């Protein structure tokens, strides 16, 4: 492969080693090379937020990161949020209960963004939640259910810290 490199990184706690083209985006690496299709690609130029992942715990657009840049780093995707295959994270439960999603396309980015936000701000106001998700576009819900879910998730997580 021309212009390729070997990389080793951790995704959702699992270590992966792959050879990748240096121009490969992290989002495409996750979806096509690792089969982690939970990360969605909407705009592919950093506007819609659907592809948000956590890089070393910080939210970032995976369409604006090269896979090679993540060599030696830790990535968390939407697949890494639930504690196990048959249990949901309190944030995911709150999304289900408050109709925080309809088509589900924006949901992976909403969840990863809110995981970071609620860690930094465990008792947010509605305005703070709206600002936190201002970089994530949703065309179904009108955001009401998402905001309600985030506020409720904050309460659930404070009641039962992970």
């Amino acid at each position, binding site marked *: 492969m*021309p*212009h390729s*490199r070997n990389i080793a990184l951790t995704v959702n706690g699992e270590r992966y080693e792959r050879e990748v*083209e*240096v*121009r*490969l*985006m992290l989002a*495409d690496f996750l979806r096509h090379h690792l089969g982690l299709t939970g990360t969605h690609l909407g705009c*592919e*130029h*950093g506007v819609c*937020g659907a592809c*948000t992942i956590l*890089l070393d715990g*910080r*939210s*970032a*657009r995976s*369409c*604006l*990161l*090269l896979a*090679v*840049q993540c060599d030696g780093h830790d990535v968390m995707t939407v697949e890494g949020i639930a504690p196990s295959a048959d249990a949901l994270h309190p944030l995911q439960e709150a999304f289900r209960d408050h109709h925080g999603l309809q088509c589900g396309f924006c949901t992976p980015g909403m969840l990863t*963004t809110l995981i*970071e*936000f609620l860690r930094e*701000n465990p008792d947010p106001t509605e305005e*703070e939640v709206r*600002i*936190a998700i*201002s*970089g994530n576009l949703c065309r179904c819900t009108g955001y009401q259910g998402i905001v309600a879910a985030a506020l409720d998730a904050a309460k659930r997580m404070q009641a039962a810290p992970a």
Partner: protein
Amino acid sequence: MKPPPFEYHDPRTEAEVVGLLARLDNAKLLAGGQSLMPMLNMRYVLPDHVIDLNRVEGLSYIREAEGALEIGALTRQRDLEFSDLVRTRCPLMHEAVRQVGHRQTRNRGTIGGSLGHLDPAAELVTVATALDAIVTVAGPTGRREVPFAEFPAGFMMPSIALDEFITAVRIPLWRSDHGFAFVEFARRHGDFAIVSAAAMLEADGSGRPARASVTIGGATIAPQRMRDIEQGLVGQTLSQQLFRDLCESCRALEAIDDIHAPAAYRQHLAVVLSRRALQAAHARLNGTAVLPKRH
């Protein structure tokens, strides 16, 4: 979308970056990637080489020294946002950086990248203009410093040679009791400003401004200091009428006319926003208003 093919370099030291820049043709520097990566995805840029600065040691720091803040070029916008030093010593930057993009983009975007990209509507470029920042660039003959007044050579074109790169920026500090405000108008939260205004005031013993800085971002090809407004403020008794009269001069700006807004609209916004920024800076002068909350 896929970027065009390129060779990827991830140097570890400033010297290696300088060496690569000297050796390689058609190379692009990658910092936070929040502008370059979309441009690569859409193939607006076709570099043969991408030099990733993210693994270069020692380019990320915020420290106070000799009456200035020294900020490493790779310092993330999010680190500026949460820095107590920035919030207390350079509150204008704190207020502005919270309006830069979104949390996901601020987590990656860097101050050096913002300044080097030199979008005239970028908040940090306007702040650097307002604060007389000094940019440090490294090249084959060593380091040199560029005052921000001389930094823009044209539209989105910094006065940096092809074999140079930004390593740091120095922000001279104002007295701790100065008044400040950064306001902007954008169509959506997190968008680039159509027009922004930064104002700073420092009072003499009688409460009149001994020093003033007024900058309009987004209206012209690079953010512009409004020297006539600044001179009109110094030594005067501040009033709404004075702000109203002085800010009218923004109507004469050589404003950009594009798909987002016609020139006359930008001139109008510049008049309104410069007045609002001065009103807010005045209210904060001498510590009569509280500093922005941490969030």
